[in-house]
């Protein structure tokens, strides 16, 4: 689920790298926590066939070209009216499972390929989810996802251990008032992930859709590239109210805070150390304008969120707060005329991240190539992301897509995880004082990551999607070449991801 600025895993790894950099016991613990969070939260939700059974309709009624989770105009109204269209099912459950193969182009530039590219070229059962939801009353409905990750953690011997935890959850009340000349849908959503209540698939919680397997061979696949997100991660609890007037103007406002009390089920299975702990309320605002004509629909919108996140979720120490200001503009165009389904999406986001005082102004452990000290760490960073995607599906059976991503931002020695050791003047992974990181290292302290993904997919029947994605990188962690200081180039991370995604 959405848990970071640049997609689920990258932001968490970004934070993990940042914290590892601190070398303190607390920093290492926090990094572990973040890594666990990455492993357990990076599993996006998808369509649930319980809705199909509830309405009796084919998946493509709600999902453009049958391509879940992207919603059609009807699917958006189904969601906004609280998942209440249809008849209540006797067993409101559904499941999905993903099997996949990931293949990184170059696995040679690594001290330990089996660790850096675990499960490379091997078929894995990447994740499995159980869903509950649908119509509860005339006005109340739910979408609840609980996900099992067979590769959630790894022990010292390298053996993987599975773990199940709460994923995206959305319980909502909705009503619709139809008057002379006006149509108002109004609702309230209790959910655990900012923007999960949003009906457009440019929303942070929904733009990245294929579940990302946890083994490190999947760390460069499309789902792990920069995607929109918020400083607040998943497994928080939020209450938002929304209105959709005349199917044109959408407004949503609410707040998120740490999950506890009666909403504890929204973090079910998550270790306390893996949760996002917020100070107070994190306000969330969303506005969008939607228009339909012919076979087209167009949405242009934006969102903003502010949050204060404790560095270590087990310690509510105000001195360790990370302060995030997120804002985004997004647009989605759909041309849906059976048997064609064309979608264009674009999102531009900006995140300002102010670090705790303890992380600002710190002298880096690394030095430059001449042995001179590097600038002290900055008190804040700004990240910008542009993400665009075009996809086409024919007869809800064959489809292809192309997407582009460009993450840029300020350079900060705080984010540098590779560099020259002041004692030896070399870049080494074994230095006690300034160890550098292979494969994921960042030699520049700049986040610039750019690339494209090509995808082709096939839906032989509505419950199964088979796809192949190839992701190309032009830059990774600030550089096209030698981004980790050990000679690894961005293009070495190019990855093939083949998946079979089944839902019932």
């Amino acid at each position: 689920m959405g848990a970071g600025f640049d997609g689920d895993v990258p932001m968490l790894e970004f934070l993990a790298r940042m914290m590892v950099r601190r070398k303190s016991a607390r920093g290492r613990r926090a990094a572990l926590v973040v890594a666990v969070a990455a492993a357990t939260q990076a599993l996006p939700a998808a369509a649930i066939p319980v809705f199909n059974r509830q309405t009796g309709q084919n998946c493509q009624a709600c999902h453009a070209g049958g391509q879940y989770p992207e919603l059609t105009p009807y699917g958006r109204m189904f969601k906004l009216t609280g998942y209440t269209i249809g008849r209540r099912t006797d067993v409101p459950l559904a499941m999905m499972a993903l099997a996949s193969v990931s293949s990184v182009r170059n696995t040679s530039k690594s001290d330990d390929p089996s660790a850096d590219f675990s499960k490379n070229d091997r078929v894995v059962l990447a994740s499995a989810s159980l869903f509950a939801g649908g119509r509860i009353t005339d006005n109340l409905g739910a979408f609840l996802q609980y996900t099992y990750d067979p590769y959630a953690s790894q022990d010292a011997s390298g053996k993987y251990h599975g773990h199940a935890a709460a994923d995206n959850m959305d319980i909502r009340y909705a009503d619709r008032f139809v008057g002379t000349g006006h149509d108002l849908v109004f609702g309230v959503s209790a959910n655990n992930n900012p923007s999960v209540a949003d009906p457009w698939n440019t929303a942070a919680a929904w733009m990245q859709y294929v579940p990302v397997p946890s083994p490190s061979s999947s760390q460069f696949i499309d789902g792990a590239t920069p995607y929109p997100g918020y400083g607040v991660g998943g497994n928080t609890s939020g209450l938002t109210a929304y209105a959709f007037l005349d199917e044109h103007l959408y407004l949503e406002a609410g707040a998120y805070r740490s999950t506890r009390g009666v909403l504890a089920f929204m973090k079910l299975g998550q270790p306390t150390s893996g949760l996002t702990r917020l100070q107070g309320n994190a306000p969330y605002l969303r506005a969008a304008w939607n228009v339909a004509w012919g076979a087209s629909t167009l949405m242009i919108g934006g969102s903003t969120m502010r949050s204060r996140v404790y560095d270590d979720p087990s310690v509510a120490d105000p001195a360790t707060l990370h302060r995030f200001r997120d804002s985004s503009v997004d647009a989605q165009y759909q041309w849906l005329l059976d048997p064609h389904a064309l979608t264009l999406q674009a999102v531009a986001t900006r995140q300002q991240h102010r670090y705790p005082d303890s992380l600002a102004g710190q002298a880096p452990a690394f030095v430059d190539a001449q042995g001179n000290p590097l600038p002290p760490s900055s008190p804040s960073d700004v990240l910008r992301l542009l993400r665009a995607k075009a996809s086409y599906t024919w007869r809800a059976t064959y489809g292809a897509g192309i997407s582009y991503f460009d993450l840029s931002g300020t350079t900060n020695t705080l984010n540098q995880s590779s560099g020259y050791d002041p004692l030896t003047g070399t870049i080494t992974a074994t230095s006690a004082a300034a160890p550098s990181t292979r494969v994921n290292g960042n030699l520049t302290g700049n986040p610039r990551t750019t690339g494209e993904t090509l995808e082709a997919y096939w839906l032989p029947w509505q419950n199964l999607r088979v796809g192949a994605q190839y992701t190309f990188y032009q830059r990774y962690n600030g550089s096209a070449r030698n981004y980790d200081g050990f000679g690894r180039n961005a293009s070495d991370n190019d990855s093939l991801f083949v998946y079979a995604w089944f839902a019932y």
Partner: protein
Amino acid sequence: MKPLFSIAWLACAVLLSGCADPSRSRALGDPKVPGQALAEQVCSNCHGQRGVSSSENFPHLAAQPADYVDAQLRSLRGKHRRDPAGSVYMWGIARDLTDSQIAQLAAYYAAQPAAAAGPAAPAEPRAGRQLFTEGAAERGIPACASCHGDKGQGNGGFPRLAHQQRGYLLRQLAVLRTSPDSRPMGSIMNTVAHQLSDDDMRALADYIPTM
């Protein structure tokens, strides 16, 4: 503050859901929900409020003859109509409708003001108009107007065509030509559609939205 936040959503959900009003229900399978509520709360998502669709993928239902809507809903409920649009979108919607709800829906849409004419086609739709009003006797194509009315207003079991959108018309003509069995109630159109060339279909689809 903590307890307030924790129970706020529960209060909203429990208290407000207790105020459910059948006139605003989206329940399919509840015979107490009136046809107008279903039209406003469910059907409108594709066919538009008052039966004027904003999408070419779906037909306007406003001012359709009640007999036609009634018969189509019964055909969809029984899964007799099997064209893709019918099965994908409508089988589920129609499966639990009662006869009374179907009659109410048909009456509701018949009473709505018709959709406005679409923008004129770039070229003068002369060929379409001629086919519609006169047919092409030499090719065995009767005038559309002979069944659908001189203004395309529909007649009993024959649907209103006037101002239907181009994409929808093309798709349905293709269904009637290539998969006649999937729309058994449109069997009378099978022979006609079989005689229509692609150019004929485009000409009709250009003209009918503007007539």
